[in-house]
């Protein structure tokens, strides 16, 4: 091997060996200080039972915060509301996005215009959007009721009827993430070789069969990615509730989500430790669901392998 005096000197060798880390250092530093450290700190804070917030002195540790959380009916309600929302909103928004993506992927006119329209909510502030929605859904002066009136539907108290909260949040969730998910789906659709469709047509597959036997399996990884990110997104629902219902968690707390609960504990009750504990529980729930999703995918793959190698 050729020796080179410069590259043989210890500091240079060290630098060369850890070159990748050197490049990563600035980003890692920022992430550590502003994200990883606070996450660890808030995780620990969940176990503070007696502490001085201003002096950062902890006098006693324990599980009291979690115990209180489990006894709090509001927290149970928050989990229930969020779960219900996730269960309905996540699959629906993926399905709707896929539908729009497939439509956009076909040769329709003004495709770029539609794409921009769908992408609009994604680049707009959620607070502004929520204010507009609150205005549209106003019982007496809102656009939605005005349109419904044309069809002879009686005024609906969208924002004050607790039964309307879930549907409104589901629609909002579908709409706000539509552009992003459509773009991701379009990328996936564009990656499918058109010859598969030609072959399928000659094999006698009609449009529906082509969708279920070619498009959907080929989009498998995309659907998986979106199902994880969408569920996480839904679990973070907060701004729309806070703004639309004028800083309240909806009528009869029907819009009380986990993040709203955390926010409420933190800013309104000043019980930081309780908020930290609730955040930790949220983290555990999201982690569990994500792992479950991975598990399902692995199971499906395993089943597929078993079936084909029979």
């Amino acid at each position: 091997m050729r020796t080179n005096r410069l590259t043989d000197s210890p500091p240079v060798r060290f630098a060369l060996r850890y070159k990748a880390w050197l490049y990563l250092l600035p980003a890692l530093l920022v992430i550590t200080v502003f994200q990883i450290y606070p996450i660890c700190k808030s995780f620990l804070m969940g176990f503070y039972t007696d502490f001085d917030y201003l002096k950062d002195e902890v006098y006693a540790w324990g599980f009291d915060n979690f115990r209180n959380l489990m006894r709090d009916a509001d927290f149970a309600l928050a989990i229930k509301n969020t779960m219900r929302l996730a269960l309905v909103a996540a699959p629906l928004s993926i399905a709707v996005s896929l539908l729009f993506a497939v439509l956009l992927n076909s040769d329709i006119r003004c495709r770029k215009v539609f794409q921009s329209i769908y992408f609009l909510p994604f680049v707009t502030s959620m607070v502004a959007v929520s204010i507009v929605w609150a205005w549209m859904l106003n019982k007496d002066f809102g656009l939605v009721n005005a349109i419904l009136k044309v069809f002879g539907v009686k005024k609906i108290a969208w924002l004050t009827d607790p039964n309307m909260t879930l549907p409104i949040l589901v629609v909002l969730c579908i709409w706000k993430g539509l552009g992003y998910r459509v773009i991701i789906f379009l990328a996936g659709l564009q990656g499918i070789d058109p010859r598969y469709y030609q072959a399928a047509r000659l094999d006698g597959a009609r449009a529906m069969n082509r969708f279920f036997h070619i498009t959907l399996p080929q989009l498998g990884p995309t659907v998986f990615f979106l199902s994880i990110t969408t569920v996480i997104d839904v679990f973070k629902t907060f701004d729309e509730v806070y703004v639309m219902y004028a800083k309240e968690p909806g009528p009869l707390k029907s819009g009380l989500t986990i993040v709203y609960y955390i926010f409420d504990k933190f800013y309104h009750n000043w019980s930081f430790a309780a908020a930290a504990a609730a955040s930790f529980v949220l983290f555990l729930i999201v982690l569990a669901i994500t792992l479950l999703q991975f598990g399902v995918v692995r199971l499906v793959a395993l089943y597929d392998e078993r079936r084909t190698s029979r």
Partner: protein
Amino acid sequence: MKIRLENITKTFKTTTAVSNLSFTIEDGEMICLLGPSGCGKSTTLSMVAGLEQPTEGEIYFDDVPMSGVQAENRDIGMVFQNYALYPHMSVQDNILFPLKMHHVPKAQRRERLEKISNMLQIQELLHRKPGQLSGGQQQRVAIARALIKEPKILLLDEPFSNLDARLRIELRDDIRALQQKLKITTIFVTHDQEEAMSISDRILLMKNGVLQQYSTPQEMYRTPVNLFVASFLGNPPINKLPCTLRDGVITLPGINGWKPDALEPVFCGEVQEQAVLGVRPEDILVVTEGEHLTAQVAAIQTLGKEVYLRLHHGEHTLTACLSWDHDYSIGDTLKLKLRKCYLFPSEGGL
């Protein structure tokens, strides 16, 4: 099934891919669509398949017009250039897919799968994914998928272009044998003239979307209708020499000692005074007397059983293909006799 194309024209925005194409394929025939890339042969195949609609004209299957009949209803098996096997399905599911789409009963599916996989010798591969197969294996699976629904028509789009030379010849013979056994009307597209000559009943040669000649391989080789057909077929390609024709006598400008004795050219088209003399490399013989011209050996290429000579005479170059029973060396002056030659109208320049 008989296939008939009538005055088919296909235009894409500004370009015309196929113009006024008419031909008939008899039941059970194997036809090759041949031509340089971009000549419209793949477009023609797509129109027969129903993947593209002709701009003008009509396609008939057994005298039934096919316009408005979608590809999924045409009862056609097709093998694509890159096979287009569904990557997420096992080989077995790939082959069974057409039957599933046609709602064939399960018991019958198994039966047919067994039959077709025996025929193509792919029983061992049924549980693999297409990604785990070699090119030749994928090719066989694609053929199995095309044939399992027992279609009336088989279309092959450049089926051998992704295979190595040895496998190509092997599969070529297999496909021909299979086609003759099943008596299925087959159209196959290629740009390889040797492939076309070796397995098709008839060749349809196209250039720039226009039909040039539609005949048996022998006829196309022996009596080409024009210079393009003559130069497209044959390897090495036909020699072309500008000549003049006066009172039935051919003269070659720039060639000294040219004796057109007893030369009976095949006339290809309306030949005027200015013409092109075409000579196939294998029709040039080396003789000791009675020669038509002499030339010097400029280069030698040996191919085992035969030898290619590049010959110079003045500014003219000829390629000759001779059997290797005599050793030639560069610089030799040879006496040449033309066994057979063609006369084409001069196409402005050359």
